């Protein structure tokens, strides 16, 4: 009886055809050489257009297969070209999220140890419990919408970019929740006030309406578009960066801006991912023009909701002694950013629409 031949399993212990083939060779790297992100992401979700010999072998009762390009009205000649600029895979995602959680914990613990919450202006505490408290629900709603969206894309790269975006939104919603709970051990904060504000305060009803519109959207590209092109630029970042982060210091609060600032860093990455995907779709030689028209249609839905939300939220700027904080100027900044995003993805405002 013959014995198994190869004794050593180490690379280089034998040389033969294929013994030096040490890279995944079934996809084209975006750059000169495949990144780790590409190696662990590309083609993990197969596609009848690539490698999937038998096609999908299960379907829904109406015949729709496990994954279908019809899950969005957007068309693309090759969805597999997309790579997320933030290049996140599991290790980098956990490193970043963990780093943020540890930083927030350190900042909050040290501020509390130094008695910082006691020195917050009393009116500012009311802003935190009501309006920062309301924001956490908005962030949570966006997280839910993105969780649903990550089911439907036909490539791993598209779905994972929405998955990590959703993870960031949930983290922020929980960070705010736990932060308010923790400082509530030092100062008097009603932990349930934010929910009441979110559900009932007129200033927040526009935001709630805009978020619920995104949650109700069933097209996953529409969700991603509405979140990062429209809502975040005109509402999310406006409130976080244009209000909380600017006003905090004036009210002796250096802690809350630090907690919220992580979200701006999250958004920068998620925006870059979004712009990259939507630019690819709108630059598609065959479908680009139709895609742009579809996105213009989405703007007709989400733009008035988000500008309306921002204008309604203006009331929050006015309730404090925020003389140096002018809603008009921060909203103008937000609109500029929104215009620059539209320009980057080559989408025009629908005719008859103004900002």
């Amino acid at each position, binding site marked *: 009886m013959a014995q198994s031949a190869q004794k050593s*399993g180490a690379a280089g212990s034998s040389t033969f*055809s294929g*013994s030096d083939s040490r890279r995944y060779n079934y996809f084209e790297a975006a750059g000169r050489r495949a990144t780790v992100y590409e190696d662990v992401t590309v083609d993990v979700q197969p596609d009848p257009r690539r490698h999937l010999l038998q096609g999908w072998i299960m379907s829904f*009762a109406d015949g729709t297969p*496990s994954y279908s390009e019809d899950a969005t009205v957007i068309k693309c000649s090759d969805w597999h070209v997309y790579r997320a600029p933030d290049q996140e895979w599991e290790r980098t995602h956990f490193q970043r999220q963990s780093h943020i959680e540890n930083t927030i914990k350190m900042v909050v613990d040290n501020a509390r140890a130094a008695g910082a919450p006691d020195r917050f202006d009393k009116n500012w505490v009311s802003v935190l419990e009501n309006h920062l408290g309301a924001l956490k629900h908005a962030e949570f709603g966006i997280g839910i919408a993105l969780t649903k*969206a990550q089911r439907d894309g036909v490539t791993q790269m598209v779905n994972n970019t929405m998955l990590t975006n959703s993870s960031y939104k949930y983290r922020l919603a929980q960070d705010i929740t736990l932060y308010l709970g923790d400082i509530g051990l030092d100062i008097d904060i009603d932990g349930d006030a934010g929910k009441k504000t979110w559900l009932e305060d007129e200033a927040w009803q526009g935001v709630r309406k805009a978020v619920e519109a995104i949650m109700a959207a069933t097209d996953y590209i529409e969700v991603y578009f509405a979140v990062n092109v429209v809502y975040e630029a005109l509402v999310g970042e406006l409130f976080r960066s244009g209000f909380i982060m600017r006003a905090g210091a004036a009210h002796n609060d250096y802690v809350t801006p630090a907690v919220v600032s992580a979200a701006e860093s999250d958004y920068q990455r998620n925006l870059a991912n979004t712009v990259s995907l939507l630019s690819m779709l709108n630059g598609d030689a065959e479908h680009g023009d139709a895609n742009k028209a579809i996105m213009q249609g989405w703007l007709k839905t989400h733009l008035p909701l988000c500008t309306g939300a921002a204008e309604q939220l203006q009331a929050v700027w006015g309730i404090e002694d925020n003389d140096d904080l002018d809603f008009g100027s921060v909203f103008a900044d937000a609109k500029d950013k929104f215009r620059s995003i539209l320009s980057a993805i080559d989408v025009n405002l629908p005719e008859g629409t103004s900002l």
Partner: protein
Amino acid sequence: MSGNLTLSKIVKQKSISITEATRRIADLGWAPTYFEEILKYPTDYKVEKAPKDPMKQVLRSYFPMQEEKDNRVYGALDAALRGDMFRNVEPRWIEWQKLFLAIIPFPEISAARSMAIQSQIAPGEDLRTGFTMQMIDEFRHSTIQMNLKKWYMENYVDPAGFDITEAAFGKCYATTIGRQFGEGFITGDAVTSTNVYLQVVAETGFTNTLFVAMPSEAARNGDYALPTVFLSVQSDESRHIGNGHSFLMSIVKEPENLDLLERDLRYAFWQNHAIVDAAIGTIIEYGTKDRDKNKESYAELWHRWIYDDYYRTYLLPLEKYGVKIHHDDVEAAWDRIVKKNYVHKVAQFFSVGWPVAFWRIDGMVDEDFEWFEAKYPGWYNEFGQYWENYEKASLPNQPPLLYLDQGYIYPHRCWSCNVPALIREDFCVDEVEGELYTYCSETCRWTHKVAFAAEYNGRATPAMGRFSGRRQWEECYHGWDLADVIKDLGFVRSDGKTVIQQPHLHMEDDKMWKLEHFKGLELRSPLMDLRAMSPEEREKHIAEYRAGFTIKPI
């Protein structure tokens, strides 16, 4: 005084209690009033009660915990290289990882997508963090496994097969079985797929053989990397099991759900058994070089993990809620493993099909024979001659074994589980919507014809999925020349001639099979041939198939 200024006392900071934290986080959700959410992935179950969160973990502790687990994994991989792991690893073992690691990342990421579905149908927000963490966990599993495979590719003597991994996954005769597994998590009735098939059966029951038994065998073959990665993966599974049980408890008390639960537990248990035991049983029993008779066989592991641990302590207690558990199916699965040699017949099928594999399948030798005979008395009588033939036909001096006159009959594929009908006496056929299909067992026939249908027990089941598409791999290449098949699959090495798959572990060029060795050999689809037969021919063929075959020497 100094007692008050210890580091732990200085940095001690009281935080909100975990109970209060999870209460507030669960209160983040609300019932939308401006726009109504459309249920994109519906269910036929009644789902009204909000599931509770059994884990009460928040992301603030989750992310650092996962990062720490990752640090241990990647540190261990570095240590394995510094310790020259691959010098002592068993090539027989690593070759089978080309198959296993091609399959598993897809079911993992499908489970992440599954959370999009389950989180939408679950009422309330208590379990939202649980679903979120499971979604991120599955993203972790998929990409950490892809990275492990990349690591094998970079450091193992024969990287061919790893280098085409995801392309091979989409094309291979064996990986189609794994796709049935992964697609089952995301397609069809939202509760059937996400809760019953994924969480209650696959994760709670069968991840024990996948992610606990497999790593043990890896370590016995000098592979310390796979246990490092997969035991870290398995440590996440308890969270998913908790999600699954909590959701199950929220639907089990609705009387109208009981018949659907009976259906789905039956389908899910049988199909998990058919798929997972086929793949993992074969890899553990035939991918190992360790023949210590004191270690448990796959059958013994199955009895411990599936029969005692899962069936007796998880499934049986569900009866108190009125759920009908099919004890006969559990006994039948056990009989398939210990009396009907299911795993050995799968290994025989995989190995005889080596020309369309993308990994090397090492033959069995005397020490293997002795171990199999000790663990499965009578093994040599049924399989010994086959493996003697396999060894004799391992070098390219004659056509591959499948095309030699040794008595083996290439099997029909089961339309339901996608594993071939290898226990010949259990082979059955049936017509569904006017078309003829083949099955490995009566339960798989029931699964296709009765469970995956528009109604069940007289009630409409519009949310239930369907088995569809080109489910039979062989159909794709019916009537093709084998050399053309291999070229089309892309299972050819960089010289354009030598095939990736080999029925041995020899690395010398003159012992490697090349495309020219497969020319003139035809591949056929047994199902297409069966459908083309007259009723009389078909009846005769089925009777002969059920009678089985006897292997003779070549």
